[in-house]
């Protein structure tokens, strides 16, 4: 039977203001740290346990979530496993190569890339090849991003090992060529020739692969108290005006930067999060593809926070989230001592206020939040 806390949360979620339009909660057999879209109807998830076989699953969204309005009558609220594969290593990064049936993954142990093929006549995801990209670098693994036009993968553990590799020939088509061993935390492809990188130190850069290494970048922010770590995300081009870089720090700082002047952030705020974050590697900040100036933040605890950055300015102001998803905490079945941590989240590519979030207790939520502000 439900506890008091769970009962009251559900009752609260009935109310429209601050509530959910739609909410689905699933229990996976293992937690995932990746949520990668394939089209707008499917996502990939993968296990990250170190000592056992992990599964990569291609999940089809419940039909309910695929239709614009509830035109059809779909009782199905379940995810369907459309394809699955096995990996003997933990998977920490997974990218789908657009317009292909290929996936690229990386993880631990070792610094390697693995290419997978989603077979057509069966439901199995087969590992096609594995290449080692550099010497083992402790607990680090290559970050990934994929180019679409010509299938290429951008990968790197540190700035020095940043490379672009062609997926058919496995030839390196671009290298940073630097000796800088700063650790990378994010890589993001922006178009056929440019990509962005973010280092754990907070150093950001935009790179044009048509030229030898000459990134447009900012200097690393002044080192704060030890253990700080940054991650970032760049808005998609054509997503509206305003700063396009957002970078997030484990101390709760969120900076907005404009690509034209990475030296001077447009604004920087302090998010109300528990610090220090228990697992700095889980930090994630994402821009909403369907809304202007909204972003989501997770990785500090069991919540996902949505912010509207429109009126942000100046440095150091305290901000409040527009919406906080607390589902992972309230529906936590594990009764363990540690509350679950949100491992990753992603926005639905078409439905503007729908997000997917997963947590360390193997829960996967799909939620559609209601904007609490009165519409003007």
């Amino acid at each position, binding site marked *: 039977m439900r506890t008091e806390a769970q009962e009251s949360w559900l009752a609260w979620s009935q109310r429209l203001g601050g509530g959910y339009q739609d*909410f689905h909660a699933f*229990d996976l057999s293992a937690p995932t740290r990746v949520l990668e879209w394939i089209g707008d109807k499917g996502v990939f998830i993968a296990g990250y346990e170190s000592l056992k076989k992990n599964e990569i699953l291609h999940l089809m969204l419940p039909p309910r979530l695929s239709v614009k309005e509830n035109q059809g009558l779909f009782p199905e609220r379940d995810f369907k*496993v459309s394809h*699955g594969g096995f990996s003997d290593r933990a998977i920490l990064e997974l990218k789908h190569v657009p317009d292909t049936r290929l996936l690229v993954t990386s993880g631990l142990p070792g610094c390697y890339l693995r290419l997978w093929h989603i077979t057509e006549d069966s439901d199995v995801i087969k590992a096609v090849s594995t290449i080692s990209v550099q010497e083992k670098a402790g607990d680090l693994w290559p970050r990934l991003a994929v180019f679409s036009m010509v299938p290429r993968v951008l990968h790197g553990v540190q700035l020095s090992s940043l490379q672009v590799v062609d997926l058919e020939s496995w030839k390196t088509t671009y290298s940073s060529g630097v000796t800088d061993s700063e650790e990378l935390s994010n890589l993001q492809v922006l178009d056929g020739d440019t990509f962005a990188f973010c280092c754990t130190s907070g150093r950001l850069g935009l790179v044009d692969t048509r030229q030898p290494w000459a990134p447009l970048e900012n200097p690393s922010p002044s080192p704060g108290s030890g253990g700080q770590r940054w991650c970032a995300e760049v808005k998609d081009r054509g997503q509206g005006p305003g700063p396009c870089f957002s970078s997030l720090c484990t101390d709760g700082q969120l900076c907005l930067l404009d690509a034209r002047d990475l030296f001077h952030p447009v604004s920087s705020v302090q998010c109300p999060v528990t610090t220090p974050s228990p697992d700095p590697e889980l930090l994630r900040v994402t821009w909403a593809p369907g809304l202007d100036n909204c972003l989501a933040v997770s990785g500090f605890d069991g919540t996902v926070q949505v912010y509207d950055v429109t009126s942000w300015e100046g440095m150091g102001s305290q901000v409040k989230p527009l919406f906080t998803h607390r589902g992972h905490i309230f529906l936590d079945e594990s009764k363990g001592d540690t509350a679950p941590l949100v491992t990753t989240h992603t926005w639905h590519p078409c439905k503007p206020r729908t997000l997917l979030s997963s947590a360390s207790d193997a829960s996967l939520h799909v939620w559609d939040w209601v904007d609490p502000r009165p519409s003007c």
Partner: protein
Amino acid sequence: MPEIRVTPLGAGQDVGRSCILVSIAGKNVMLDCGMHMGFNDDRRFPDFSYITQNGRLTDFLDCVIISHFHLDHCGALPYFSEMVGYDGPIYMTHPTQAICPILLEDYRKIAVDKKGEANFFTSQMIKDCMKKVVAVHLHQTVQVDDELEIKAYYAGHVLGAAMFQIKVGSESVVYTGDYNMTPDRHLGAAWIDKCRPNLLITESTYATTIRDSKRCRERDFLKKVHETVERGGKVLIPVFALGRAQELCILLETFWERMNLKVPIYFSTGLTEKANHYYKLFITWTNQKIRKTFVQRNMFEFKHIKAFDRAFADNPGPMVVFATPGMLHAGQSLQIFRKWAGNEKNMGTVGHKILSGQRKLEMEGRQVLEVKMQVEYMSFSAHADAKGIMQLVGQAEPESVLLVHGEAKKMGFLRQKIEQELRVSCYMPANGETVTLPTSPSIPVGISLGLLKREMAQGLLPEAKKPRLLHGTLIMKDSNFRLVSSEQALKELGLAEHQLRFTCRVHLQDTRKEQEMALRVYSHLKRLLPTLRTQVPRCCWCPGPTRMRNWGASLPHCSRRVSPRPLSGHTTHPGLWLCLATVPTRTWALTSAL
């Protein structure tokens, strides 16, 4: 024949009718006898000609087992027993026995009376069929005959649903029917003990799904109901009389309390009667928690839920009504539906045609009803998903798993998962395809104490996971198997021990000294033949002149005895012994003693 054969006659990659034929150690059992709801002709019945082309079904089948009352598992039973012809026992649980005939009659009425179908079973046939039913209790071992026994396990899913273990000697098969691994308010989760059957047959319809949590489904349901009554509309919830209705009532009652709602909720009378009738059955099939709740209060003494009167349907204002039948095809639910369908403010949760999107329905007398009310289809039925299937297989620990209800192409991953994670083979036959499982039935053998003690005296402790080689003689007498030492066997049988020796002469041309050669041959052979005994008696290493004997006649002569002496306390162990002797022409002899 120590093999198990399984043939799905329906199910097996076809979601629709379940009907599986199992042949186990010469006994033939039919599991479920379902109707395919999607067809209107003979295709809705399983193809019984697979069972036997000629000859009576009663002679061929030892029994029929029905897992639960859903029509896709029991719908073809009267057709099978009365029109095709079967007079043997039909096993099912008590609630299934009580509810089956009602659903069958309901279905018959619609097929024949409403749709005018011919070649359908009659009411009398349903009654005659049910006379052949033998009801069983959970965990009760039922002897079908002196070799075949069956046992029912709790399956969750619906009232009275069971999983069955079918056992003949040391071979067994478990059939799950439909089951559910997550408990809900009124039904517990399926459970089975570590019975380690040779084969587990399980449905896999939902194997590739990851289910939305119950709380979210309920939340959605409550939200829709609440929104409708808030704007003054009426909510019609067609349900089957059993189980699920109680669950939703409890849910609504709790919600009404919390939200302090005053909108009336009604139960149609047909529902109340049926529910009370099955109250007794119902209560023993629920879990402890529910039993306590129902003991505290009568099932229908809800604060906010009252009995329905037809006239209320015309009352203005919001209300919620639970009505039967669930598929909205007749009776009270249909009547109410007609009244409320024209109003957009109303909402119904409902069945078939409407589900497929039709908004204009043809009623009796050619009346056309335009459906303006909102319709939501909420599925609360409980099936096992991928996680649940893995759990159940983990509980029962079968040697192999057979999946029914899935599409082969879409099951490659699940099959791999089961085979890898649970280390069992996984089969997925199509309809009409027979899967044959070889089994290795275990034969119990008694071991003599003396033999056992002697083995223990060798010093090594027995290990459960490491098989050890034991030498002895198997005596089969009067369907009794005993393993005794060879001397014991000889004594009992009054035989004398014989020793046979085989000798092989090998010529080796080499300039090295005999001793060195002897060592080389010995180590070479030792490497190749790991079982080569090391107890080579020293006397065999003697160089010196010998006389050649006839090949194979006996051992080459040596100035000392060459044959290995029996070592104290052991009979001569069979195997390869190396006895080396030198002869002027450097002949080496290899002796094998049997």
